[in-house]
């Protein structure tokens, strides 16, 4: 094997047609009654690879939520982190708390990932602001705002969302962008349903106020 590499290591010979290709063992779909999320997660405790089916089922919706909140550039990485953390924490999934399936639980984990991500972003922005350096890229909020320039009415909403407390923002966006019910948001964030109601009520009032001001400004202009 001269020229194949370092001394002391025998490089594997080859270059001929492949006889058999190693394949991954994947969960079978369609051969039996579709298992619920709770059943899949329970099975993944004995057969960890079964968790891939949970990913297959919910990856698109979790990714869409992440991409809307953090931008498409980082959504892929956050999606990976979300599902790997979910896998590690699959023992904690409680079907009684989340009777409609694993999606609220997954979106709750995704929301925690977003908070971690936003904290690092916020730190970076504070540093940049102190140093007076102009950042190379717009902030996440600016990025969203840039996309909604065509709809001027949406801009004041973004400005309000940017100033909301984390819990209020998470609750509102799980409701408006992830289409979760109040019960599912409560399961996702681990908070009482009454808290969800009060947060939604409070943030909607702020959004309405911002829209009302804008409408009045437009009418008087």
């Amino acid at each position, binding site marked *: 094997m001269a020229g194949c590499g*370092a001394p002391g290591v025998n490089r594997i*010979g080859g270059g001929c047609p492949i006889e058999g290709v190693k394949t991954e063992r994947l969960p079978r779909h369609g051969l039996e009654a579709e298992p619920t999320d709770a059943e899949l997660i329970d099975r993944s405790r004995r057969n*960890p690879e079964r968790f891939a089916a949970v990913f297959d089922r919910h990856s*698109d919706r979790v990714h869409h939520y992440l991409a809307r909140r953090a931008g498409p550039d980082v959504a892929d990485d956050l*999606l*990976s982190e979300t599902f790997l953390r979910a*896998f590690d924490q699959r023992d904690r999934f409680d079907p009684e708390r989340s009777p409609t399936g694993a999606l609220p639980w997954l979106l709750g984990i995704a929301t925690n990932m977003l908070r971690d991500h936003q904290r690092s972003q916020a730190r970076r922005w504070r540093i940049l602001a102190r140093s007076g350096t102009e950042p190379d890229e717009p902030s996440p909020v600016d990025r969203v705002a840039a996309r909604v320039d065509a709809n001027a009415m949406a801009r004041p909403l973004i400005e309000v969302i940017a100033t909301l407390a984390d819990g209020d923002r998470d609750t509102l966006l799980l409701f408006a962008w992830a289409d979760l019910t109040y019960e599912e948001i409560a399961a996702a964030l681990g908070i009482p349903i009454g808290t969800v109601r009060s947060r939604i009520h409070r943030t909607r009032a702020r959004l309405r106020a911002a829209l009302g001001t804008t409408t009045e400004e437009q009418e008087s202009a």
Partner: protein
Amino acid sequence: MMDEIDLLARIGTDVPPLADKARARTRAQILARADRAAADRPNGVDAGRSARFPRARRRMAFRLGLGTIAAAAAAIAVGLPLTNTTPAYAVTKHSDGTVEVVIRQFLYPKKLEATLRENGLRAVVDYVPLGQVCLEPRGLMVPQDTMKVVPLPAARKPANKNTVLRLSPAGLKADETLVIEASFDKSHPDKSSIFRIAVFRGAVAACKPTSTARPAPIMDGPNGPITTPPK
């Protein structure tokens, strides 16, 4: 008139969908993690800890988990290399992107394979019993790229006779896989008789253990791995 929630719901709906490549990558990461979890499971005992672990043990596990997280966070904070250590091997990812592999025992090849994949190195690892090798050919070997992924020779430290590899994932192209093969004596899992490493382009066939024409010698010399090409 459109209310505030309707208006909010229309913001950001134009984000691109999950791309096939990103979907496949994350799925592979989950399967690699699952592979590791399965390998870590003693005698097929499942991970349903919540039902079977007494509360005190769960608390201890939780504390250990927190310790691990804290250690990992500290490592990230100060830029230390991240190491994944088991009795059989240790995999360390260095800040320059290279991955160091120390093989102490030729056990749990698929666990090592999963760890390498988690460290960004698409690898296939197979250990076969003494006197056997994986049937060739397993695919299309690319010697020139093997040099890029394994720039330094495998070495054995005289003190502990571990096999040490310094691998460069950046040298691996998108359609390539690093293949590591070794044969070992079950009574001496810390020694391999044959240790082989190569980069393959395209698919890699599963290892079909086959007998060598002559038994390979146990590798215990001071000058590094003694290798015997398969017949």
